């Protein structure tokens, strides 16, 4: 079990994953901080290490359109992007999911313009959160590699047949070189085998894809998409379970640390969870009863798994790396967390802390401040909070 360990960046880790599962068609367009994924894949194809068609598309819109076409024709496909590129793909993202095409895409998360900024936050990832894609977020380069391999198995599962996006933080993960155990082709294909799907474009069995649906039919298509996303919960759990058995690394929809009887549980997603964990471990040593939940599976949102870590908490602090100006929730992750608790009748204070926009570093000091501010609400209820959100690390 397991391949060799090599020092590579998050971007390269993703490219190695796409190679390991023997993708047939890659279409991608360069954008910082994702570019190295595409460069590495081009190198693999150029060297004959990967037998794939590499389409040098003229935009991200065409990148996703081309892999949608290739997937419809029965190929295993991969693309990658960030920020503006993801926004340009937005139209086609909805189409890929409702047409039930198992496209896999990696997203090196980045702030969106304006002002133009190439550094990390989750604005791009969050902007695609309601497109019917399964969305996973990797914490480091190893996870980016592993989740990309798992993504193919999940996407192509006959119970699912949905596109999957694997996010990982731009620069913090995409450009950080870490030791990564890279899976070999045979073991990756054993875990995520290829199969000929039932409905593909083939002159032997003509079919029409992407037809016009009137008010008599459209609704059913969308509900079927919803049902498939819901069904994917079980498939993802099985895929993670099987991954652990095959390769020894165990993934879950959420990770909980010190969440039993915690006065405060922090909720974070992406590389900041690593910093948060270091903070939590230190704080625990000095007697602060703080815990942490890392969200790995963002869509479908893992309510049950999350709730188990929150039901004993005094206060919850959501750490958001994106902003929805003018919304009732301000940070997008906050809305999912609040609803998870509200639906289960748990009335504890939930605060939202927006951090690290446009690549601003998120430090242990930030988590310390979040913790202090949050613990002031211990024993209170939701309605006692005057201001639900705060920006951490921003100029006054």
């Amino acid at each position, binding site marked *: 079990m397991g391949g060799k360990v090599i020092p590579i960046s998050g971007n390269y880790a993703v490219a190695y994953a796409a190679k390991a599962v023997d993708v047939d068609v890659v*279409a991608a367009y360069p954008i910082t901080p994702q570019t190295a994924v595409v460069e590495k894949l081009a190198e693999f194809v150029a060297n004959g290490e990967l*037998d794939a068609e590499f389409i040098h598309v003229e935009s991200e819109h065409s990148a996703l359109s081309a*892999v*949608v*076409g290739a997937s419809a024709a029965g190929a295993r496909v991969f693309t990658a992007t960030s920020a503006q590129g993801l926004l340009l793909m937005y139209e086609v993202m909805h189409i890929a999911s409702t047409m039930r095409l198992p496209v896999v895409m990696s997203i090196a998360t980045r702030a969106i313009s304006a002002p133009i900024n190439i550094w990390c936050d989750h604005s791009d990832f969050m902007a695609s959160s309601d497109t019917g894609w399964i969305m996973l977020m990797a914490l480091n380069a190893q996870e980016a590699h592993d989740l990309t391999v798992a993504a193919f198995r999940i996407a192509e599962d006959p119970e699912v047949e949905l596109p999957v996006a694997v996010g990982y933080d731009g620069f913090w993960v995409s450009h950080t070189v870490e030791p990564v155990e890279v899976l070999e082709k045979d073991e990756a294909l054993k875990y995520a085998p290829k199969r000929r799907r039932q409905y593909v474009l083939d*002159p032997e069995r003509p079919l029409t*894809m992407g*037809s*016009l649906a009137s008010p008599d039919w459209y609704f059913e298509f969308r509900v079927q998409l919803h049902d498939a996303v819901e069904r994917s919960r079980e498939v993802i759990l099985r895929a993670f379970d099987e991954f652990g058995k095959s390769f020894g690394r165990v993934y879950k929809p959420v990770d909980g640390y010190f969440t039993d009887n915690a006065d405060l549980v922090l909720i974070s997603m992406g590389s900041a969870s690593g910093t948060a964990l270091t903070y939590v471990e230190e704080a625990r040593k000095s007697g602060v009863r703080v815990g942490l939940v890392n969200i790995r599976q963002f869509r479908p949102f893992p309510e049950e798994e999350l709730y188990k870590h929150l039901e004993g908490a005094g206060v919850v602090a959501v750490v958001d790396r994106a902003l929805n100006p003018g919304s009732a929730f301000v940070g997008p992750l906050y809305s999912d967390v609040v609803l998870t608790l509200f639906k289960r009748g748990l009335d504890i204070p939930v605060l939202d802390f927006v951090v690290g926009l446009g690549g601003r570093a998120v430090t242990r000091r930030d988590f310390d401040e979040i913790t202090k501010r949050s613990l002031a609400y211990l024993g209170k209820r939701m309605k006692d909070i005057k201001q639900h959100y705060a920006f951490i690390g921003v100029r006054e």
Partner: protein
Amino acid sequence: MCQGCGAAIVMRHLLKALGKDVIIAHATGCVEVTTTPYPETAWRVPWIHVAFENAAAVASGIEAAIKALKRKGAIDCSKKVKVVAIGGDGGTVDIGLQALSGMLERGHNVLYVLYDNEAYMNTGIQRSGATPMYAWTTTTPAGRVWRGEWRRKKDIVSIVRAHGVPYVASVNLAYITDFYAKVRKAAEIEGPTFIHAYSPCVPGWRYEPHLTVKIAKLAVQTGIWINYEIEKGVLRVTTPVPKRLPVEEYLKLQGRFGHLTKEEIEAIQRIVDEDVEYINKLVGATVIGPVERRG
């Protein structure tokens, strides 16, 4: 589809010429919406529609998939399958131009068919880059200030040709043997090929449904539409017109030109004369002759 629809005639003959071993990638438009009302379909060949501006990109992906799957032994290598992209003028010369350029430049083995009805007909007759001079549309109405469209039709064939593709041709449904020969040739040639198909539109051009073929024929006879092909860079006019009819013969049957003055008709005549001269120059002979007024 509307009674007398030019695009319907184009599609019927296009598919007949192509045969069964094709996969179609279709842009959003009249033909797409009218032929695939779920759960029915008019297509007996594999067909996909994704969006408006990306038929060429989707076709690129399908072609790449077939190549990869054949090479890797996942599908039958011996079977020849032609990928065909179809788009209207809006989906091709306007919103889909970038994807088309990418597909042509990368050299995909795809035939792209543009059915040109000279405006956004699916949304109800709005001007596109392919709308001809002085044509009325709902967004270029004829009023006190505007006199219909005031810009010349975008020369899409020259844009396509500039990509150095092996085969480009224009076809007209009133010249059906020429139509079949060109579609078959375009499908057989390896690499990106392009067919520009003239597609009269009854409600958009405002004429009686029974006049579709007559109008199509008049387009060629007046020199407004020229049937030609460009193979390996060499242009050949496939329907020579020794003596042209005046453009008025073509314009007067269509309500979209109903507001034109004598001067405006003369202006259109001058544009057509220029276009004809340009083609004759490229050919190096007078394949399209001068205007001859009917007795």
